């Protein structure tokens, strides 16, 4: 442990130091090469000004290039190669993929997740935001709903696996869900092993975790809706429901879209919950877990893993473009 601590401190200090030294030193170099004095001051400082931003961007670009851009491109390359990346196989992996039943299972599940989780989380978040707004104990309520945000997927998996726990009769059910079912006269179930039901059970966990996120953002957006528009509507005789649907919701449409896409992206990349709770068995496979399986489980096949990863990337791309366009629009304004 002590060596590890030293390593941690040394790494932190050396990366920070390198970064500062680089920006400082390079700035000094610029000022020495093109001093902003003398006859050529104008041209020199214009030149230095062209380069200076890149000095500041440098370390971040190196990190992002090396840890995000290059590996993604490299994965594209891997998808065209065999299991070890040694032999070029062209579109072989993609062809295999097109006929792989497990891919379709994962795609189907991912699609179901996409339809259910963002919609329900956003709707619940909106309801929670409206209900808690202005409530005297609203802050407390919001903190409780927001809390799962701090919990890891693995932690949430333990929490909910306990809810879904199943003990064969006659022992008493200690899982809350089965206890309720037996109390209502039903027969206890092994929820996580029943196809379709288990998908819903997993979705509930993610909805439980994401609702707070939606609520926090939507409640800020609701509060930004000008009070006068609500008062004007009230004077026009509109009831709370009309005000909500006709005045408030239209004004926060942009935020609703942002929340929706954020949760959609999160759901597309969802891995931990499925990995930990069912590991994709009993018909719960999703794309991200399938990729992990091919990349690291059993007899790994980097080529096929990369091919499935490309499918995931293709699904994320439209949202990515949507994000980029929003950012560029802002940049221009």
């Amino acid at each position, binding site marked *: 442990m002590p060596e590890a601590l030293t390593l941690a401190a040394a790494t932190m200090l050396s990366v920070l130091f390198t970064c500062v030294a680089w920006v400082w030193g390079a700035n000094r170099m610029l000022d020495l090469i093109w001093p*902003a*004095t003398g006859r050529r*001051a*104008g*041209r020199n*400082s*214009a030149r230095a*000004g062209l380069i200076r931003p890149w000095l500041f961007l440098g370390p971040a670009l190196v990190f992002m290039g090396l840890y995000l851009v290059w590996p993604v491109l490299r994965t594209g390359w891997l998808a065209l190669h065999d299991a070890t990346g040694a032999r070029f196989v062209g579109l072989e992996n993609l062809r295999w993929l097109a006929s792989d039943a497990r891919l379709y299972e994962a795609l189907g599940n991912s699609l179901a997740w996409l339809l259910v989780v963002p919609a329900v989380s956003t709707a619940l978040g909106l309801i929670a935001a409206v209900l808690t707004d202005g409530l005297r104990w609203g802050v407390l309520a919001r903190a409780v709903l927001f809390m799962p945000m701090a919990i890891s997927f693995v932690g949430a998996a333990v929490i909910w696996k306990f809810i879904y726990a199943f003990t064969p009769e006659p022992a008493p059910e200690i899982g809350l869900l089965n206890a309720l079912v037996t109390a209502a006269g039903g027969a206890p179930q092994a929820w996580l092993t029943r196809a379709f039901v288990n998908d819903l059970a997993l979705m509930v966990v993610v909805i439980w975790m994401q609702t707070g996120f939606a609520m926090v953002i939507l409640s800020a957006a609701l509060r930004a809706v000008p009070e006068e528009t609500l008062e004007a509507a009230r004077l026009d005789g509109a009831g709370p429901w009309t005000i909500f649907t006709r005045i408030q919701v239209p004004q926060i449409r942009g935020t609703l879209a942002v929340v929706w896409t954020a949760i959609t992206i999160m759901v597309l990349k969802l891995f931990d919950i499925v990995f930990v709770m069912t590991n994709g068995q009993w018909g719960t496979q999703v794309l991200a877990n399938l990729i992990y399986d091919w990349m690291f489980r059993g007899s790994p096949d980097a080529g096929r893993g990369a091919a499935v990863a490309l499918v995931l990337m293709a699904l994320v791309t439209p949202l990515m473009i949507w994000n980029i366009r929003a950012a560029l629009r802002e940049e*221009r304004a």
Partner: protein
Amino acid sequence: MTSIILENIAKSFGGTRVLDGIDLAVASGELLVIVGPSGCGKTTLLRLIAGLEPITSGRLMIGGQVMNDIPHARRGIAMVFQNYALYPHMNVRENMAFALRVAGVGRDRIETAVTRAARLLDLEDCLDRFPRALSGGQRQRVAIGRAIVREPAVFLFDEPLSNLDAGLRGAMRLEIARLKARLSDRTMIHVTHDQLEAMTLADRIVVLAGGRIAQVGRPLDLYERPETEFVARFIGSPAMNLIPATVIAAGAVTRLRLATAEISLARPTPPDLAGAEVNLGVRPEHLFPSGGPGLVAGRVDVVEALGEVSLIHLGGITAKLAGTRQDLGGQTLRLSADPAHLHLFHRGRSVMSHLPLG
């Protein structure tokens, strides 16, 4: 030795041209005031001079040297920003000392400079306070103090008084006038849209409209001899009245037909103006009730009594009469003016030569 010369300066943001064809020479030690309606490019012009925005085209010279590409730090310019831009995390002393500390000035000299500026601006009690604990007027003075400790050759003031209430603004106006008197060798460019500020402070005024210079001149010049309708209405309050008229005869003597009467003016206009539709300009303070046909006639709609003067409104025309004249309310009135105070505008430009300035 720090004149500022702008030659045919233009500035575009993306595709939109914000400033165009700006030619201006500011003499060393002059206090030039730039006025103009909101969005006309005043701040942008200051930012170009300070080097905070690149100049799209044209040439900028400060102290005889081309400055287009010289970095801001080497232009010897201090700027007081419209929103003060105090460093929120530094107290007043640190705010004022920052530039000197950057320049590597010794601790003692910084202390002296800051103390002197604080005394000058009456800020000695606030030196250890943070900007958020200062009143608007104090913040404004800190912003000025931050500029003067640097002893720059050129001061740029961007509407420094616009966020203050009327009383404080009057006091600070005086403050700036005093400052200017004390630093008479420094060149100052002061932006405002308060014309009182402009008239009282300026050596010369530049009226900016839509990114172009409408007129440059001494304050009374602009008041008495506006070259355009825009300047005529922009300088002076309430704004100059414009009365539609038709030119019957032009040349050495000008004859005009008004709604009320025909009048002759013994001041020359271009001969080809005959038959043109023009606007006769007359300032409210130059109108007085008359027995004759007058320039305008009508029922008085509203009388605004301000105490020393009353503003009389009739049919879109405003007259400023001395004393309290509420007795005029509802009456039919004819107003006339001294021909020497009349202006004539054709297509927005002044077309009648003015009397020589007294």
